[in-house]
């Protein structure tokens, strides 16, 4: 994140890069979803109030039921890239508005989420059977 003018002027890259508006997060969500359903959703709660909520950097997971709005945006995000299971990163701002941030091919589940693994494997088998039946 570039927070002030000096950081902005100092930032140099030989390659084009994406710059994005910063949305102050009230909550940072990760859903595991495909174009039809959400399998799991949790809030990523960073250590020490950091804005960057990444489980790999120590953020805690708080599991929650998915609201309809969270389901809608998650499924839309997957559908937008052609469908499939993704880890969807979504920011909820202070007004409760949800913002799509990015999709992750590595969904973000562990062996502590056996139901998710089972659902993913079910979907792989379903796709196999569909291919075989053609």
């Amino acid at each position, binding site marked *: *994140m*570039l*927070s*002030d*003018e000096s950081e*902005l002027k100092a*930032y*140099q*890259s030989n*390659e*084009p*890069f*994406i*710059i*994005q*508006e*910063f*949305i102050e997060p009230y909550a940072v969500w990760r859903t595991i979803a495909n174009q039809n359903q959400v399998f799991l959703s949790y809030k990523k709660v960073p250590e020490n109030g950091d804005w960057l909520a990444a*489980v*790999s950097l120590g953020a805690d997971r708080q599991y929650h039921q998915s609201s309809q709005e969270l389901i809608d*945006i998650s499924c*839309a*995000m997957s*559908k*937008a*890239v*052609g469908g*499939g*299971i*993704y880890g969807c990163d979504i920011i909820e701002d202070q007004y409760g*508005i*949800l*913002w*799509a*941030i*990015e*999709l992750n*091919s*590595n*969904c*973000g*589940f*562990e*062996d502590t989420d056996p139901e998710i*693994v*089972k659902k*993913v*494997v079910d*979907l*792989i*088998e379903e*796709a*196999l059977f569909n*291919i*075989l039946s053609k």
Partner: protein
Amino acid sequence: MKVALVVSPQASKHGKSENQLISDHLQDRGHTVVIGSSLNELNSMIDCQVGIVRIPDRVSISSPEDDLIAALESQGVRFEVSSSQRRVTQCKRTTQILFDRAKIRQPLWQLTTSEKMPPWDLPLIVKPRVGG
């Protein structure tokens, strides 16, 4: 049935763990799982590749969607072209273009360079590895 799980070379430690979990469960169900870093590497070894969960994810775009293709090309996205479809690696800018097209709410974004920063208020998020 041999199933290929394609794992990108950049897959995180976390991603490798996911692949192993999926692989273990598929094997428990009687499938043979081959894991590799590219389809080329795996094509000769497998009966069937399932592009559901593993990387690289590809976005297929039908030829009639010329406006989308133009939008992607204007952002420097390169395509693989086959007879009826163009395929593109799912990367940050592709995803963001597709989100815009699907009218999904996302923060304003712009592909830019160090010399041409957008006139937005700070702070800004930088995504350096745009792919494509």
